[in-house]
């Protein structure tokens, strides 16, 4: 009985020791280090996962069996962090208890306690984020309004985005109108600035706002809107050369990668005409070298259903390219913009934890840098 009791005491001492906290930290670090090498389900591209499984079939099986292929969604991984937090809670409260009871006045105790408490705060914030975070995309073309209702969403827009649309709370009366989108390039064509001017309607309040990369917009309802991506919607007009009749005329929202100056291909509706397009703006001669004006233009290749080439060349704004049977004109161009909308109730708690961590770690460790060296007579 005595041995059993001693065993229990020893176990309790181990479970509440700093050694366990250190072991758990080492386990968490090792798990993350291993998971960094293994392509993670739902995060890495499917091709990478297939390649990994093909190259290391045995390792892939083991990784799958113990959850290393989806570590950041596995229960045991979060359980380790929960145990670390439990250990911190116990060790910290014990330190506070002895400090108050025995008046030890240990140097650096309070900043150390605050630093450890900051993990608990960040962990709680992270947990709230994990449980309640809502995010999605909204795609709006210049001049259009997105109100987030099911009826107003063009599902085709989201087919190539692999992202769910974001629905605003219907009672909030929230709507975003994209007035215009601007891209500033330098003389070498490198994008140096991009921003979207929007009108935000929230119930009865209407306001103008600008959303930039790195400068998200915060709505009254708590959502944050960040500028994620953009693309082109050229207005193309195709006419039949023989009959001189209009084949089609409209704005065509080009899917990526046209937004990253890559080539994209699309088919004109109700025709067998396929257009391959790559955005290639033409530099207009201006004096300033810092900001140059670019005229929208597309490098295009028009083919029919049989793959026969009809038109090939650079189509500038307002110009027409004539082929053997059809002609194509670039009449106008609009941008479409993809915004990411996030509602995260844990973020403020996480930030509070960050602030506490930053202050307390500096308070705890910085004085140690200015002590006298152990032996400065060298």
């Amino acid at each position: 009985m005595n041995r059993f009791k001693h065993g229990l005491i020893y176990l309790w001492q181990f479970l509440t020791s700093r050694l366990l906290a250190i072991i758990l930290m080492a386990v968490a670090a090792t798990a993350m280090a291993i998971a960094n090498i293994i392509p993670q389900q739902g995060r890495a591209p499917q091709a990478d996962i297939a390649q990994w499984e093909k190259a290391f079939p045995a390792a892939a099986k083991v990784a799958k069996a113990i959850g290393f292929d989806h570590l950041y969604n596995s229960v045991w991984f979060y359980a380790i962090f929960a145990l670390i937090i439990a250990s911190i809670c116990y060790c910290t409260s014990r330190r506070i208890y002895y400090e108050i009871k025995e008046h030890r006045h240990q140097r650096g105790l309070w900043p150390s306690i605050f630093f450890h408490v900051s993990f608990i705060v960040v962990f709680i914030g992270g947990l709230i984020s994990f449980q309640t975070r809502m995010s999605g995309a909204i795609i709006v073309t210049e001049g259009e309004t997105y109100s987030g209702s099911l009826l107003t969403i063009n599902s085709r827009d989201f087919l190539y985005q692999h992202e769910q649309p974001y629905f605003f709370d219907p009672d909030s009366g929230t709507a975003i109108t994209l007035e215009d989108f601007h891209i500033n390039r330098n003389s070498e064509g490198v994008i140096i600035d991009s921003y979207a001017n929007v009108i935000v309607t929230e119930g009865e309040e209407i306001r103008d706002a600008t959303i930039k990369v790195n400068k998200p917009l915060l709505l009254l309802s708590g959502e944050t809107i960040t500028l994620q991506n953009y693309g082109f919607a050229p207005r193309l007009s195709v006419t039949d050369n023989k009959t001189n009749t209009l084949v089609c005329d409209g704005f065509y929202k080009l899917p990526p990668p046209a937004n990253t100056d890559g080539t994209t291909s699309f088919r004109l509706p109700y025709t067998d005409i396929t257009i391959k397009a790559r955005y290639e703006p033409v530099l207009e001669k201006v004096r300033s070298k810092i900001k140059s004006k670019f005229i929208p233009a597309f490098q295009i290749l028009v083919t029919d259903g049989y793959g026969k080439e009809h038109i090939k060349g650079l189509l500038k704004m307002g110009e027409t390219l004539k082929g053997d049977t059809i002609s194509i004109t670039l009449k106008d161009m609009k941008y479409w913009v993809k915004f990411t909308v996030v509602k995260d109730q844990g973020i403020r708690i996480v930030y509070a934890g960050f602030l506490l961590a930053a202050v307390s770690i500096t308070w705890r460790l910085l004085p140690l840098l200015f002590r006298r060296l152990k032996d400065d007579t060298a």
Partner: protein
Amino acid sequence: MTQLETIFFWTTVIILAGASSIFAAGLAFRKDVAIKGAFWIVACAAATLTIAIASRWIATGHFPLMDEYENSLTAAWLIMAIYIGLRYKIRGLRSLGIVAAPISLIILGLGVMSGPRLSPLTPPYKSIWLYAHMTFSQLTVVSMLIAFGLAVLYLVKARDKQANGQSMRLERLPTAEVLDDLSFRFIIFGYITATLMIITGAIWANHLWGNYWNWDPIETWSLVTWLIYGIYLHTRFSYGWSGRRASWFAIIATISVIINFWGIAYVTNTFHILSKLR
């Protein structure tokens, strides 16, 4: 690279290579004059690198902190500046150039191999949080590398002392106790900056992507590194580790820093290839 930058960059590399050799020779043959001279050569390297950094800053219109090459410039400069500063603050540290000069040289070499190119700031870079993040990451890597060098020197010095009772060849170096203490201090400083690096990076990510933590490989590896150095501090504070054991720990932990800053980007897909951001 601009022409001026190229000239001064390669001048720095040559000077640092010379300084490293002179430091090694000075310590090996116990020549004080050589060590003193090498110190001033490192100071010259710092000056020429300053000109290279300034010319790049003028050419690109932003402080060079945004790609691997630019980071190597600032990291090497920081190491030299810290070394020169320490030399004036604490006596007997001139010979630590044997750590500072070769590490700076290696960092510059790694940087120039990454293919430097002049580019202006694209929109994702235009954030005060990113500047803070990059600055803290530079301070972290520099501190941890210096701590690594000091830990190696500690082991060499301690071993030498153990072997014949007095360290003849390495007597120009500070005592083993000072080396151990300095290594610990650099890790303390690096830990503070690593914490701030993770925090500012998370805030920047939230502004850019609307998510403060994405489990991105480099992001995750920075947490791994932070945990490893957290364990180091616990062993020192709670279990009284110092000297040999602490030095070995510091040396092994540096592997994680090297993977974090130079390795992981080549192995997996990461958001942290900043040149890919648009």
